[in-house]
């Protein structure tokens, strides 16, 4: 499991490679929080293009980061959801509070 970070116009962009389950979610959470603390950003944008599997542990991870971003007056955006991830996303109701985009550019311009 690898995470690549970048910062663009006040957004922390996070690309996770691998699967999000209970086991990996603990590491992901820890790493993301550390990076978010370090950076002067409001929003977190998740690039899901390399996530082939996510279970409800991933919902917990996103909800937790949503709270962190909210504390700074920011939001969470996601893009490039694979079909399995999208189904978990919809069923959890996450799509009601987290905006889904088709691309990074769309996410950045919408989250301004």
């Amino acid at each position, binding site marked *: 499991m690898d995470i690549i970070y970048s910062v663009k116009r006040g957004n922390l962009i996070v690309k996770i490679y691998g*699967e999000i389950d209970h086991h990996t979610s603990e590491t992901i*959470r820890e790493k993301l929080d550390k990076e978010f603390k370090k950076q002067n950003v409001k929003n977190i944008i998740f690039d899901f293009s390399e996530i082939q599997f996510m279970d*409800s542990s991933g919902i917990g991870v996103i909800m937790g980061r949503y709270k962190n971003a909210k504390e700074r007056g920011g939001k969470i955006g996601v893009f490039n959801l694979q079909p399995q991830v999208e189904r978990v996303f919809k069923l959890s109701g996450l799509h009601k509070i987290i905006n889904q985009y088709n691309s990074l550019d769309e996410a950045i311009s919408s989250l301004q």
Partner: protein
Amino acid sequence: MQYQNTMKVSFISKSQNEAFARVAVAAFVSQLDPTVEEISDIKTAVSEAVTNAVIHGYENGEGIINVSCTLTNNIVDITIEDKGVGIEDIKKAREPLYTSKPELERSGMGFTVMETFMDEVEVESIPGKGTIVRMRKKLNSLK
């Protein structure tokens, strides 16, 4: 003619084995040639049930989790069994968003995911003895 096949795996309740369990079941079910969506539904449901056994059944301690899978024509039956603490109130545990461990940032959606992705989910639990989750899915892509 009826086709039937069964497999069983047992492993220690380490969180690393969540991925092992869902991949093992998916590999076994693959012999029926299901769709990608059917396989990912099964993987997700198995992942949820095994995660529950690790976190709640054994409370992150060590125990044995037994997973079995039986294929009968196009019906997939899966059981996930632990000998952990058991569930006091199954009805409550199955409610969406309910979690007995809110401090862990869990979503409380585990059973809802299983119920959505499988056709049937039965939970049998005795406090202090353990829990068995039985799930069934009919592979509609196979006639």
